[in-house]
């Protein structure tokens, strides 16, 4: 598998986990804050704020360390950041609920505490991935477009399958642990494809453009 393929699988998987997490986010908060519009509003806006931050940070990081290892490390951190969410989300949202703020603020703060870090880390992935597959300026638009398409297709499936099937098959906690596990596997795959000698094949691909 070429480096490009490895990166493509990475953005697909990270997109998947990100939206799966967002769907679960609403369900994690509703026991304490209800299932009204505020809860969904909080979750979605926190994810967007985190992504915005992540994109920015991702761009900076990719310039400093344009290496597969850097991106793999970010993904491992994202995986690790999901684990406390899986274990303590009930405690955390209960704590915010007991502050007796208006539901919209309670759910916003709880969403921020629980989901900002993992979704910010996953937000770093896309710009970083673009940098990793770019060899020349002429092809950067195509590469970026393709990666975003793949990443968003992953998000699409993550969103759909989580809400339609996964929550029917298993508990929230298990889905979160599996997501963290999937991210670790993705990081390993990325490292494997990045550091095996597929350079020649890579050159063929770039010459085509």
């Amino acid at each position, binding site marked *: 598998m070429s480096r490009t393929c490895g990166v493509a699988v990475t953005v697909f998987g990270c997109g998947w986990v990100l939206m799966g997490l967002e769907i679960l986010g609403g*369900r994690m908060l509703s*026991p304490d804050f*209800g299932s*009204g519009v505020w809860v969904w509003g909080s979750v979605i806006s926190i994810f967007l704020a985190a992504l915005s931050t992540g994109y920015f940070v991702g761009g900076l990081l990719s310039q400093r360390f344009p290496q597969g290892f850097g991106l793999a490390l970010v993904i491992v951190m994202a995986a690790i950041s999901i684990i406390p969410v899986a274990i303590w989300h*009930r405690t955390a949202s209960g704590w915010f609920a007991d502050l*007796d703020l208006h539901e919209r603020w309670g759910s916003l703060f709880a969403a921020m505490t629980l989901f900002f870090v993992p979704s910010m880390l996953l937000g770093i992935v896309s710009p970083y991935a673009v940098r990793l597959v770019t060899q020349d300026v002429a092809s950067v638009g195509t590469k970026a477009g393709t990666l975003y398409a793949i990443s968003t297709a992953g998000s699409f499936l993550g969103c759909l399958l989580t809400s339609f099937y996964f*929550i029917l098959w298993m508990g929230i906690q298990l889905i979160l642990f599996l997501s963290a596990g999937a991210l670790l596997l993705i990081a390993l795959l990325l490292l494997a494809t990045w550091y095996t000698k597929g350079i020649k094949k890579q050159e063929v691909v770039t010459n085509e453009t």
Partner: protein
Amino acid sequence: MKRRFLMMAIFGISVGVVCQASLVEGKQEWPIPGQNDYSEYESKVLLEKESLYHYIRVLEEDGSRRLQFRRSGSDYEESVINIRQPLKFEMYYYSLMLAGFAHKSDPNRILFIGLGGGTIPMAIHHYFPMAQIDNVELDPDVVEVAKKYFGFKEDDNMKVYVRDGRVQVRRLLRKKMKYDIVFVDAFRGGYIPYHLTTREFMEGLKAILTSDGIVVSNLRPGFESYHYHRRTFNTVFRNQYSYGSGSNVIVIVDAREKPLPQKDLLAAARRLQKEKQFTTDLPAIIEEGGMHNDYVRKGPILTDDYAPTDVLRSIRRE
């Protein structure tokens, strides 16, 4: 002199009118706004509105007003009230819900989750005027509809909290409030929101009940989630009773050491029927109901972690 006579006559007539009006009111359980303009032969839509949570419709036909929530192309009936005689229940499950009073016939405090048109709380208020009734309704527009079209009224013994049911239970728990009866009748167009079905929610309910308090829950046996719901009740409450066998089953649960014998329930129902003159035959409902285990006993339960009820709602039982 003539003028005085005229005034006396006017006075007399107006007293007569007032008396008559109060007579009519005495006959009627609670006034439904606009009931005098109502025509039997007309069927009309009084309100169509997209609220924060629902697509709301209020219809008037065949002597009744109907509150409907639309979901997936169907209009789900949430409340129906008889315009002339609100106590003549137009939905059978309203009568079934009265079974709760055979279990607990002297309630001081009642919590009602899911106001809808407010027909049942108003009826309870009528039959048990001394009981303090706290209602919880998520949608502010539904509270407006209840007041404007169903004659729902707040007073010293009737309150509404506009809030999510689960959030309110959590607050009541913190305030250490206790209730004798908690009615759970919260639907969102045919299904119960999942966070009002889980073991954690039921534990919250149990914690706000008095020692011999009960939860009265309106369930839909046509759906797979019914069995999950009852199994989950079974893990939290010691005794379960069910009433009705149609599209709605009323499940009553309590945490007593021993279940209430049916003959006691029946005796209580007969006594209440005599005293309150319910428009429905409460003793008959009690007689038909009881501790049936008409659900699949083996299988998963619902928790905050695992509660696929909004998926299960679409799976009809064979």
